[in-house]
């Protein structure tokens, strides 16, 4: 039942905050923040207690919904879901904070949409029924569309459309694939069900499995996004309000990665294995191409948006490497990218509130004026380029170690991507904080609220870089089941790494 509450709390929060917004905008913000913090407390509580609970599924809850079709309200939580949920509510709460001063019009409806997106995302991470999964997958879209379309920047409507139509198109292909799987399963076993666990070992013809796998994969790589399908992302990220960008980059993209890990690989192991070289190629193409495009962007948010394309390439690369190390790297990458990119978007928003531009060419020389902000930005830029000691390094390192075993040429190319990352990341610092000052800015440095939202991010990214074991341990349980690889923990990971790199 607790899983249901986790999903219901933001729904109730959404309705409440809309209702009270007519009275008081501040109260509405507090309600939104409160409901997300409550959820955050619940999932963190689960995480802390889970250490003793052992491996496997922590919670499992089921209730009939549409029995005629074998559709159930089936929610379950394992390590992967748990970690993703912690990230979801953490970033969710921060995105309420970040919009505290930015969103002045229609606060009620804004927070309604914000909380609803988070509900959808939490649902995606929790559901174990494929119909329900598609349902939540779609539920995420509409409020996100509103967030971009109403509170975004100049070209918001174009961006909102593009986002909506791309993801919806992918989603429909996934729906066809889900139904295909449903009927194949029914034809083989006579049982009509959308239950994930029942569908897991559906025997099917090779070519059919490939088609179905492609259906799922399309939806996920559009969301991820991988290279040919990435064009919605820079527009959506750039035009969205800061909170929208944080949610998009930090959470929405992760649902694509989560989908690959949770559905594509376990449901179609053989087909995925056959497709792996192509998927890895897409991943590498994303890393390099995204990085190159990021370097060329004149717009701060757009630059950060393209870095997401590049970083998500690593996810695709690692997910299709089919080994434990890469797997852990992928999950780490999901979390650390959520944090570092979310933070960069927040910084872009904070900066925008002060100088009202996103043009890199109109910034420069801000360090003397905003030393604190400069320091924080420096930390996340370093995280983004993969500096050891920060979370992203662990993630990308693990992915490369893992993919080396699977595909050497691809790994070499992906490693080149780290150089590209250095180039574009440093460009941010150079353009924004160093160099010549065109104008004499008199700007306030980070305020209390801004410290409250940025300090936890800094702490977490350092924590993940120095001591990632709790996360790795939590998700290891998950992988045992999914990939049937022998048990390993982070110490084994390090050992494997040592074997490969002398």
């Amino acid at each position: 039942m607790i899983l249901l509450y986790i999903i219901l709390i933001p729904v109730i929060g959404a309705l409440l905050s809309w209702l009270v917004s007519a009275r008081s905008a501040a109260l509405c913000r507090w309600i939104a923040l409160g409901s997300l913090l409550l959820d955050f407390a619940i999932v963190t509580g689960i995480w802390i207690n889970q250490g003793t609970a052992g491996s496997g599924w922590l919670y499992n809850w089921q209730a009939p919904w549409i029995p005629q079709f074998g559709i159930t309200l089936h929610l379950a939580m394992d390590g992967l879901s748990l970690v993703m949920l912690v990230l979801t509510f953490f970033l969710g709460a921060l995105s309420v904070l970040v919009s505290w001063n930015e969103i002045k019009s229609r606060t009620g409806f804004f927070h309604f949409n914000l909380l609803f997106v988070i509900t959808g995302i939490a649902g995606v991470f929790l559901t174990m029924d494929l119909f329900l999964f598609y349902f939540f997958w779609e539920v995420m879209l509409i409020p996100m569309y509103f967030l971009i379309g109403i509170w975004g920047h100049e070209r918001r409507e174009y961006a909102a459309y593009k986002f909506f139509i791309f993801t919806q198109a992918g989603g429909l292909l996934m729906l066809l694939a889900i139904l295909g799987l449903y009927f194949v399963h029914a034809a083989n076993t006579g049982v009509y069900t959308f239950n994930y666990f029942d569908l897991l070992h559906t025997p099917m013809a090779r070519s059919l499995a490939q088609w179905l796998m492609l259906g799922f994969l399309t939806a996920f790589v559009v969301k991820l996004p991988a290279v040919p399908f990435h064009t919605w992302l820079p527009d959506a990220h750039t035009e969205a309000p800061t909170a929208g960008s944080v949610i998009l980059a930090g959470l929405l993209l992760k649902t694509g990665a989560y989908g690959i890990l949770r559905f594509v690989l376990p449901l179609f192991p053989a087909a995925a294995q056959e497709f792996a070289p192509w998927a890895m190629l897409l991943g590498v193409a994303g890393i390099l191409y995204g990085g190159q495009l990021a370097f060329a962007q004149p717009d701060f948010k757009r630059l950060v948006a393209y870095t997401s394309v590049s970083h998500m390439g690593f996810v695709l690369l690692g997910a299709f490497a089919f080994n434990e190390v890469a797997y852990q790297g992928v999950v780490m990458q999901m979390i650390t990218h959520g944090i570092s990119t979310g933070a960069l978007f927040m910084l872009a928003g904070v900066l925008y509130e002060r100088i009202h531009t996103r043009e890199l060419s109109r910034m420069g020389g801000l360090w003397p004026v905003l030393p604190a902000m400069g320091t924080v930005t420096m930390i996340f830029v370093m995280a983004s380029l993969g500096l050891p000691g920060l979370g992203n390094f662990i993630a990308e390192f693990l992915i490369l170690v893992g993919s080396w075993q699977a595909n050497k040429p691809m790994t070499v190319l992906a490693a080149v991507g780290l150089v590209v990352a250095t180039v574009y990341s440093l460009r941010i610092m150079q353009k924004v904080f160093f160099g010549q000052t065109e104008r004499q800015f008199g700007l306030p440095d980070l305020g209390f609220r801004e410290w409250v939202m940025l300090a936890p991010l800094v702490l977490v990214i350092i924590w993940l870089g120095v001591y990632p074991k709790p996360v790795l341990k939590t998700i290891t349980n998950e992988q045992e089941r999914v990939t049937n690889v022998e048990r390993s923990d982070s110490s084994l990971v390090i050992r494997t790494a040592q074997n490969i790199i002398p």
Partner: protein
Amino acid sequence: MTFDDLLSLGPLLNICGAAVIAMLLVAIWRNHRLVYYFTLLAYALALASVVPVAKLLPHIIAPLVVIDMFALFNSGAIVGSGLIIVLLSYNYFEEREERKEEYYLLLLLATAGALVLVISRHFMSLFLGLEMLSISLYGLIAYLRARQRSDEAGIKYLILAAISSAFLLFGMALVYGFTGHMDFPGIGAYLQRTGTVPLPVVAGFGLMLIGIGFKLGIVPFHMWAPDIYEGAPLPVAAFVATISKGGVLVVLIRFFQDVNGTQYTMLWWILAITAVASMFVGNWLALTQQNIKRMLAYSSIAHLGYLLVAFLAGKQSGLEAIAFYLVAYFPTSIGAFGVLIVMSSSVQDAETAEDYRGLFWRYPWVALAFTVMLLSLAGIPLTAGFIGKFYIVMAGADGNRWFLLLMLAINSVIGLYYYIRIVAMMFRTTEAPQRTFIKPSLPLAGNITLGLVVLLLVGLGVYPTAMMQLIQQMMTLIK
């Protein structure tokens, strides 16, 4: 005629009787409110009289009509939709027309025509029903005589409907001439016996398909739809979009089933091509429409295409999907027109997309209702339209019609664009343009009706189980 016969025709008799009484009422005392309440009562009674019929099923009144589960279910859907349309009509006509009483008379007659269609199993009853429906519609479409486009629409519909009826009749004559039967099962049995379909019968089917296709508004017989929707009074447009098309679709399904249409690949292919063409043309032309009535017209063409996909699946689940889709689509479509009705003033219909700019910030409740309708049309979760579309896709997958499903998926995405465009328009902030918006009438009855429709749509979207159970019990056609 036995008592059971009469009882099983309950909904039809109710509506027919009401039409006669309404005529007399108008002759005795011309009063809008009186006729309105009377019509409401008639629809409510007809809806209630659906219930006792369930015990008698299936019931054949040879040779003309058959009342089976399928027919009864659709009768209920038709009468229910008619009730909603009547609820939305009062203010619309009260504000516009001096002679508003006959509208109800014609509406009752048209409904009676649709009710005949859903129970017909014979060319005679088919044609009678169809003509009753069409002739009432001529009057209904041109009802607001003072308007220019209303006349145009009426004449257009008159001419095209008459031509299509001629095609239908000729087709029937050919089929009758060579098979010697006018009842559907008879034709089916004849074709079964001979094993081949003689060429004139093929031609007859083709000609009939033209007639039926026109009424359904599927490509390439769709040209009339946008003009009619634009010119007709809004409640009538809602009627054309739902009841009139639904009735004809039901008769098509029954005919197809009775003549074992699934055996004739030729027939299947013709319908498949029409379905795909309807989806693409409908959605494509809707893309750039600035007039919401025209957009709804094109979107209804596309929706007929979706329905045909379920139909072509050729499975029991396909029938269920059609039934569910109609249950979802009727209120959605009527609700969308209902929003237009509520938002229109007595001088001008709120029909261009511009009229809805920033509606959410002016009339949040109406905008929210409209958003729900549009999202339901687009098939987004939490609405009935989503479950309906899902049901169709499911039926198609069940029948292994992957190509058609792919087309449907592509079209859903295209369709999304123009529905979302309207939604975006409503949520757009109205800063600059100093334009005056139509001052909506916002009648109370209309608002309440919209509220009910929204509840129904969301209810079906969140908890479709009960409706599905009902449909699975009901969807049995008898031969």
